[in-house]
């Protein structure tokens, strides 16, 4: 039974036994977040450690991009400086998008509520006896978020480059008809990667640290009209930061799943031209 002796049942407060009097389904949102995030973590962990089926030319899974380890032929567009790395190539680069999301102000809200129940919902007592917030290790490290944002911009550029590469002609073994390996190609994979990279950019550019960096830290907007304008654009995106966080989470998993199914030969790419 959770204890709230230091909280809403403290001696000076109104004596009410219940930890909350909310009658709505307050538990639904944290439960949904818990289930979806857990499913993503399990899926991403499995895929990251697999070390195979991440490249179906010309598509490269975002979990493995840029592929800097000992990757399959055609997947390493930026060389293989970590060819000696014995484990999956995804583990070399996933720390950056993972770190970006783990320290993200939106995700922090979501997982503090859903996983740590701190608090599970507004006006619902949390089950912990003590609380120090983000003042101590390890949570004080949430303050490095801006550095992960810098890395996320680089990741976004790489994924954008991957989209350009996804228009490349497909190799002969994927061809399903005459002449399909020549010229520019576009398939369902290309489309999914475009959608993914749009969501990734919306998520990256709507970041609170980005908002601070482009202009939020200023004291005089009037003396920096260009940065003020940038700040208003980012501010507009920022109001939907949580939405972009969810959409990009789904899109990145979907693109990876699609490429996995292609690479394992389970399905064939739906080609538009």
């Amino acid at each position, binding site marked *: 039974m959770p204890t709230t002796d230091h*909280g809403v049942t403290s001696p000076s407060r109104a004596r009410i036994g219940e930890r909350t009097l909310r009658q709505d389904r307050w538990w639904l949102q944290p439960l949904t977040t818990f289930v979806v995030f857990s499913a993503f973590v399990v899926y991403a962990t499995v895929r990251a450690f697999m070390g195979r089926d991440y490249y179906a030319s010309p598509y490269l899974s975002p979990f493995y991009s840029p592929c800097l380890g000992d990757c399959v032929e055609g997947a390493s567009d930026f060389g293989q400086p970590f060819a000696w790395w014995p484990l999956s190539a995804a583990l070399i680069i996933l720390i950056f998008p993972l770190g970006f999301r783990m320290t993200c102000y939106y995700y922090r809200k979501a997982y503090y509520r859903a996983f740590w129940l701190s608090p599970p919902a507004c006006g619902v007592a949390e089950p912990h006896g003590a*609380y120090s917030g983000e003042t101590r290790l390890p949570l004080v490290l949430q303050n490095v978020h801006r550095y992960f944002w810098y890395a996320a911009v680089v990741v976004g550029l790489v994924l954008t480059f991957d989209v350009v590469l996804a228009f490349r002609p497909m190799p002969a073994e994927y061809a399903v008809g005459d002449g399909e390996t020549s010229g520019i190609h576009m398939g369902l994979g290309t489309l999914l990667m475009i959608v993914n990279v749009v969501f990734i950019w919306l998520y990256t550019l709507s970041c609170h640290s980005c908002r601070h960096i482009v202009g939020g830290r200023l004291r005089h907007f009037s003396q920096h009209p260009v940065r003020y304008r940038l700040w208003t654009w980012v501010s507009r995106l920022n109001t939907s930061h949580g939405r972009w966080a969810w959409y990009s989470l789904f899109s990145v998993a979907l693109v990876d799943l699609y490429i996995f199914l292609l690479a394992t030969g389970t399905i064939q790419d739906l080609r538009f031209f």
Partner: protein
Amino acid sequence: MSYTLKLRIWRGDSDGGEIQDFPVEVSDGEVVLDAIHRVQATQAGDLAVRWNCKAGKCGSCSAEVNGRPRLMCMCRLSDFEQDETITVTPMRTFPVIRDLVTDVSFNYEKAKQLPAAKLGPRDADGKRRMAQVDVERGQEFRKCIECFLCQDVCHVVRDHEDNKEAFAGPRFFLRYAELDMHPLDTHDRRELAQGAAGLGMCNITKCCTEVCPEGIKITDNAIIPMKERVVDRKFDPLVWLGNKIGLRNKDVEGRTEV
């Protein structure tokens, strides 16, 4: 059209109390505070309730309606089903005085600890000037009516009485942010915000924003920007280096740390 509302009200004082039933006749268009007043007028003349403007502008009638921090005067009965039971309790973060009235002096103590604006010298003609765009930036923060619902819902103090000494709360982070963004203020409160005011204890779960009757985006527009400013001051080695070599001195130019 009127109907009988199944109303429950917490009654008691610091020695104890309980939630009691007060079925009361209410009409379309009324708010919870109307129902409370009718109970006071017809059934419980000694029911203690703090209120003033009945228009959502004075911030007096803060309470919890079905467990959610609300202004009673802005809580429409039409938002509930007619057969739904409505439970009204005092704010559960502050010491109770009697019935729905709590002692919110915690907030005034925190307000005293926040250094007021210290403006720089006037222009040659004796005036001070701010560009309109800089004036507008702080307007959202000045909508605060000090109802203290954000302070009430904040789990840092709601669920941890022992944090009250070290934590100022969202209403005052709003003030810290407003002053730190003020182009004419000469105090640098970033260290103070993180240290004495306990900004680092906030884990940005956004309940303050959810309950704000003025719709102020407390978390996105005040707390997180203030946290980022604190990162500039305390946690970012590049900003520190920039300050040292003179490339990044606009943050502290003309300001004195308090």
